[in-house]
């Protein structure tokens, strides 16, 4: 069957063809669709875990017991799982164990660019690098066989332009899942120092063997006296750049970059042009094999961002000394305005931020932020620091301790379970006076709406069990919520921590549900007679469905409004009028 598949979907189908039995992940762009695709297959254990470490451990454990297992995550997610990752190479596995990581060059939706191939080098885990969805399918399938043959975990490094590229892919039927049974082997699986030392020796021997096996993944094409060594998505740009420059070159494509096979040194004639996406991971290894390289290290290709045909053609042209005239981009007749990502119209976080702003007025809080939709609170001036999953409570606690700041730590429900639970222990242990706001929309929404643990374990059960004063609000009910949050603010002002849980499901999920049920979503329009151009709705609430007309009055785009009614709650002049009925919609939304 030939389908137009995303690279991530191809990875999932390749794993199914290999008989994957256990698949786990924590959602993160650009990796999410691997597990989303596998979720449809009910004969396997497929689970969105609390974070990447717990996901890794579930699959690693299953592979120790002989099952075929995969874990998928984005590049920064691997940091969270890096502790078990390093031990996994020492114990090895019994069933095939595929670790899929998706890097995000140019940081389309990430905090940093991190090349996960470094982790392969550091942890002694071989890294497969597919160049397109067809290869993603094949490498996922073969990766399980390779892992099982080596009894060793295998990493597969994708990037945005493999994971989120669609191409025609020929797929087979899924193979039945391969489960396992654990066989005890204390010397191998218990990494107490005496055993671990033995395992490290065995690991180094195995690594030599893996370096030889990596030679089997070399593909050579073309002829000439220029050698271009490449891998992954970069191969595609090399192919087209060579065509465009009309030069004769030998393209040496590596399927396994970590460890780089020694055999490359026999193929290239002492020197090579190196084209790779990310850091010079391949280039450094080639240099250690004695090959003189022209690549990122000496400035032939850019050191950050993603490649394209033009950048690659320019680098190769310079490296081999041929002329190249890049295409000249035309200039637009008008400068386009910036259009940063914003909170969706009707997003419950929009109301929560408004409520928090009003309830903390005069306190000049430090807004300690986190990863997820609510990071878009940056557009409201309500995110001062965002660095990683869990930074809100973690760094916010440090900021509280350092000075006499009033800190509001805003964190989503999924991130709360992912990265804030141990931090709460510290908050309680030192009674750190911080206002923690769990923005509970019941989903991991930014990645497309995967279920969050809050759907079976409400956050207040945890914070109350820890003895933290906890207040639950519905952000659509703006005025009431402000009064409740003020109580929490008082507790923090008096030197104690407090928690607010703002609960209202993701509006995108609710809209989908309403459409399925055939329920019309109401809309608000502005009564221009009543609007006094005060700007509360477009300046302070910042609903993205509301714009400021040239005369200063508000305008609601009817195609964008989802009838949340928050504008009507904040407008002091009663200028927003409802078209349609609201009660059924709000109830469907609450249950979404």
């Amino acid at each position, binding site marked *: 069957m*030939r389908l137009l598949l995303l690279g991530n979907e191809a990875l999932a189908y390749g794993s199914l063809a290999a008989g994957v039995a256990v698949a786990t992940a924590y959602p993160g762009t650009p990796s999410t669709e691997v597990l989303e695709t596998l979720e449809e297959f009910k004969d396997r254990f497929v689970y969105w875990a609390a974070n990447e470490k717990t996901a890794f451990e579930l699959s690693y454990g299953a592979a120790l017991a002989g099952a075929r297992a995969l874990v998928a995550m984005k590049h920064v997610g691997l940091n969270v799982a890096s502790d078990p990752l390093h031990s996994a190479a020492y114990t090895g596995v019994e069933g095939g164990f595929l670790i899929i990581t998706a890097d995000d060059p140019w940081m389309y939706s990430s905090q940093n660019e991190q090349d996960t191939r470094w982790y392969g080098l550091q942890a002694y885990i071989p890294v497969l690098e597919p160049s397109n969805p067809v290869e993603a399918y094949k490498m996922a399938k073969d990766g399980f066989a390779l892992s099982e043959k080596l009894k060793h975990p295998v990493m597969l490094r994708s990037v945005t332009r493999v994971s989120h590229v669609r191409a025609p892919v020929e797929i087979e039927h899924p193979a039945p899942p391969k489960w396992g049974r654990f066989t005890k082997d204390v010397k191998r699986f218990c990494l107490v120092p005496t055993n671990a030392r033995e395992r490290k020796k065995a690991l180094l021997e195995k690594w030599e063997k893996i370096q030889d096996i990596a030679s089997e993944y070399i593909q050579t094409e073309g002829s000439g006296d220029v050698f271009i060594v490449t891998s992954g998505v970069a191969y595609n740009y090399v*192919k087209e750049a060579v065509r465009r420059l009309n030069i004769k070159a030998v393209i040496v494509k590596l399927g396994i970059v970590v460890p780089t096979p020694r055999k490359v040194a026999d193929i290239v004639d002492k020197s090579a042009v190196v084209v790779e996406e990310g850091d010079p991971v391949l280039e450094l290894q080639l240099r250690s094999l004695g090959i003189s390289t022209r690549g990122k290290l000496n400035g032939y290709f850019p050191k950050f961002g993603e490649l394209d045909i033009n950048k690659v053609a320019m680098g190769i042209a310079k490296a081999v000394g041929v002329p190249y005239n890049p*295409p000249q981009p*035309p200039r637009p*007749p008008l*400068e386009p305005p910036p*259009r940063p990502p914003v909170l969706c119209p009707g997003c419950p976080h929009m109301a929560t931020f408004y409520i928090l702003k009003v309830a903390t007025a005069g306190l000049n809080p430090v807004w300690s932020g986190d990863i997820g939709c609510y990071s878009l609170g940056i557009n409201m001036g309500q995110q001062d620091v965002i660095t990683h999953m869990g930074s809100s409570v973690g760094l916010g606690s440090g900021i509280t301790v350092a000075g006499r700041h009033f800190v509001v730590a805003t964190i989503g429900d999924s991130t709360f379970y992912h990265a804030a639970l141990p931090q709460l222990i510290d908050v309680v242990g030192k009674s750190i006076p911080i206002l923690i706001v769990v923005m509970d929309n019941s989903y991991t929404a930014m990645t497309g709406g995967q279920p969050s643990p809050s759907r079976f374990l409400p956050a207040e059960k945890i914070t109350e069990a820890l003895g933290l004063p906890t207040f639950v609000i519905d952000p659509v009910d703006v005025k009431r919520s402000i009064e409740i949050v003020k109580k929490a603010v008082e507790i923090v002002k008096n030197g104690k921590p407090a928690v607010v849980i703002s609960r209202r499901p993701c509006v995108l999920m609710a809209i989908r549900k309403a459409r399925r049920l055939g329920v019309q979503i109401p809309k608000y329009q502005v009564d221009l007679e009543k609007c006094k151009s005060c700007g509360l709705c477009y300046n302070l609430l910042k609903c993205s469905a509301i714009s400021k007309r040239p005369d200063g009055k508000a305008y609601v785009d009817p*195609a964008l409004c989802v009838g949340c009614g928050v504008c009507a709650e904040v407008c002091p002049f009663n200028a927003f009028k409802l078209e349609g009925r609201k009660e059924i919609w709000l109830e469907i939304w609450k249950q979404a």
Partner: protein
Amino acid sequence: METGIVIVGVGGQGVLTLARWLGEAAMAEGYDVRIAEVHGMSQRGGSVEVHVRIGREVYAPIVEEGGADFVIALEALEALRAYRYLKPNGILVVNKRIIQPPGKWYNLNDTLDAIRRSGIKTYIVPCYDIALELGSVLYENSVMLGFVSKLLGLSMPPSLDENNRKAFLRGMSLI
């Protein structure tokens, strides 16, 4: 034939779906296809940009600046942003619609006039108006699909449902 297409719009307008439909149609005709999507943050009311490359043998998934045969914009301000991708003889197709960006107010007709006068071959297509006429803004992308399919010489992709087919045919009839 090798065609580079950049499709742009605002998160929520169905840019990704439009690209996938085009890809399906091209694949059905036996072409190789690469569609480079961006997910995550950009879907949240921000600019969305999808690259489609169609040909006999395609490798690179993205179109470089100055390298697009077509820029298809579901929103007028986004057409300005993607303008830099056009080849000198490239074609720009713009939906007659503005989604106001945060801050300044933009007038639709002034923006379209500036684009019309820019020297690039331009089609302005009332996808938004037709979609509303058909009952929902959701059909905006299928009207555009019909229009550009005619322009590209591609047929209707097999996966359209009845309402989207209707919208597709309306789009096709505009040229």
